[in-house]
């Protein structure tokens, strides 16, 4: 729909018509001071993500893809350029942009239900109502029957489902996912990807999903944004023309192989040209 379309100069604060870009990064640079030298995590980066679009960000370690997500989340501010969501410049974190971290960040001292209810409690929703909504969200992510389990009693995949449910409890319009399935075994990961597709299809959420897994990027994304290292920048913005809704059958589509081969080659070329920087850990 809107891929590749750049924000017009001065268009940052303008009202947004439906179906247009929800997330805009304009000329965004981010540098970090590390000991005695400056690290250019991102350099003059432009990116737009349409409302309801699922964009995967693919790149090697140290390409700044996590930094990109943190900028949209408002956890970090750009050194130069602007990040705006829904026409408003991002000045800090907000409940409209829900973050899902690589490791499920659940409170070990709360039950699954209580973890999911937490964002609603913070918002001032009554305890009983929050619990009722939490149960509904848990059912949505396939955790019915585990409401009273503690995170230590859940598998890695289940913990990540619970974390997703908790993020959805904020009722965000944007979902920022930072390699959420990176720590899971291959089978669980595929199941989670299919689950996420099912959830997203019905939600209207805009998603930015960071991964270093090519198959994952292709399977999930409407677009795959490929990033290169030092400095972090976008080297390709690829539309993925696979039918929706995507299911397990999608994986056997011959175009998947083509996309994967192309992206693999691209990444290999850019990896060879780089001196790797350690990935910034949140």
């Amino acid at each position, binding site marked *: 729909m809107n891929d590749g379309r750049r924000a017009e100069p001065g268009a940052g604060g303008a009202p947004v018509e439906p179906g247009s870009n929800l997330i805009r990064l304009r000329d965004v640079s981010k540098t970090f001071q590390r000991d005695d030298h400056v690290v250019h995590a991102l350099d003059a980066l432009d990116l737009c993500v349409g409302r309801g679009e699922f964009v995967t960000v693919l790149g090697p370690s140290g390409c700044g893809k996590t930094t990109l997500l943190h900028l949209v*989340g408002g*956890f970090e501010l750009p050194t130069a350029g602007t990040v705006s969501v829904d026409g408003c410049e991002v000045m*800090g*974190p*907000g*409940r409209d*942009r*829900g*973050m899902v*971290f690589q*490791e499920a*960040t659940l*409170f*070990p*001292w709360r039950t699954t239900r209580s973890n999911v209810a*937490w*964002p609603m409690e*913070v*918002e001032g929703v009554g305890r009983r109502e929050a619990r009722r909504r939490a149960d509904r969200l848990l059912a949505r992510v396939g955790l019915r029957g585990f409401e009273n389990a*503690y*995170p*230590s009693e859940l598998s890695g995949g289940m913990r990540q489902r619970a974390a997703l449910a908790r993020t959805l409890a*904020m009722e965000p319009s944007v979902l920022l996912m930072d390699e959420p399935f990176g720590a899971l075994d291959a089978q669980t990961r595929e199941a989670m990807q299919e689950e996420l597709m099912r959830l997203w299809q019905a939600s209207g959420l805009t998603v930015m999903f960071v991964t270093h897994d090519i198959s994952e990027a292709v399977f999930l994304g409407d677009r795959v944004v490929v990033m290169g290292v030092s400095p972090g920048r976008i080297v390709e913005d690829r539309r993925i023309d696979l039918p929706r809704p995507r299911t397990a059958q999608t994986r056997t589509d011959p175009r998947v192989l083509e996309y994967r081969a192309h992206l693999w080659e691209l990444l290999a070329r850019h990896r060879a040209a780089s001196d790797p920087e350690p990935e910034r850990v*949140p």
Partner: protein
Amino acid sequence: MTSRIDRGTMRKVAGVLIALAAWQSFAMSSGSRLIPGIEDIAIEFAGLALNGELADHTLTSLSQGLLGLFIAFSIASVSGYAAARNWAVDAAIHPLVSLAYPVPKLALYPLVILLLGLGWESRTAQVALECFFPLFVHAHAGAKAVAPRMEWLARNVDASPWQAARDVIVPTAMPYMLTGLRIAIPIMLIVTTVTEFIGDSQGLGYLIARSASYFDTASAFAVIVVLGALGLLGDRLVVLARDRLVFWEKGASL
């Protein structure tokens, strides 16, 4: 499972019995009146327990010690938390604490007596002074131990500082604070006892000093046994509290 626990318990009991037997044979072979046998200690213990003296002095020592510990815990928790969360507070407090930590605080006791007199106030203050340091260090470490991801989560959810403290930081710091408490309890007993050697005629420390001045070592040991039992009891209570309060950290020992 139970048999294994029983075996562990039996080993501990056996260890204590061997130590007691060694003491008893030492006492009997030495022939000195200053080294009492276990039966002498038991008799003195019974005497002190029956005339109510032991209970009175235990109550005095414990109330002073626990008050001091409570004061130290309160101040250490608040200041440790504040220092961990705010760099300006940290800059104000932390260097001072680091500097004062290795100083034997008992060296200050004569000054504390000058300020507060020889009564319970100076002893309580001395206990608080000595217990503050391990409690502060652990409260500080605990409040610092919040994973960055948890902090980001709190920011993402837009939790107020109060909500973040109650729901994220305090639960994270809890195991650390209990560890601090576990270290502070024996210190509380030590300082209470030592300060009671001096001045007022109250408390278990006073009882030991009095017995020693009459060469009544059996009584002194009877009181020492009580002190040991109190220390053990306090320690077990903290461990029990930890199992209840920090149930999610299974298998982690203090």
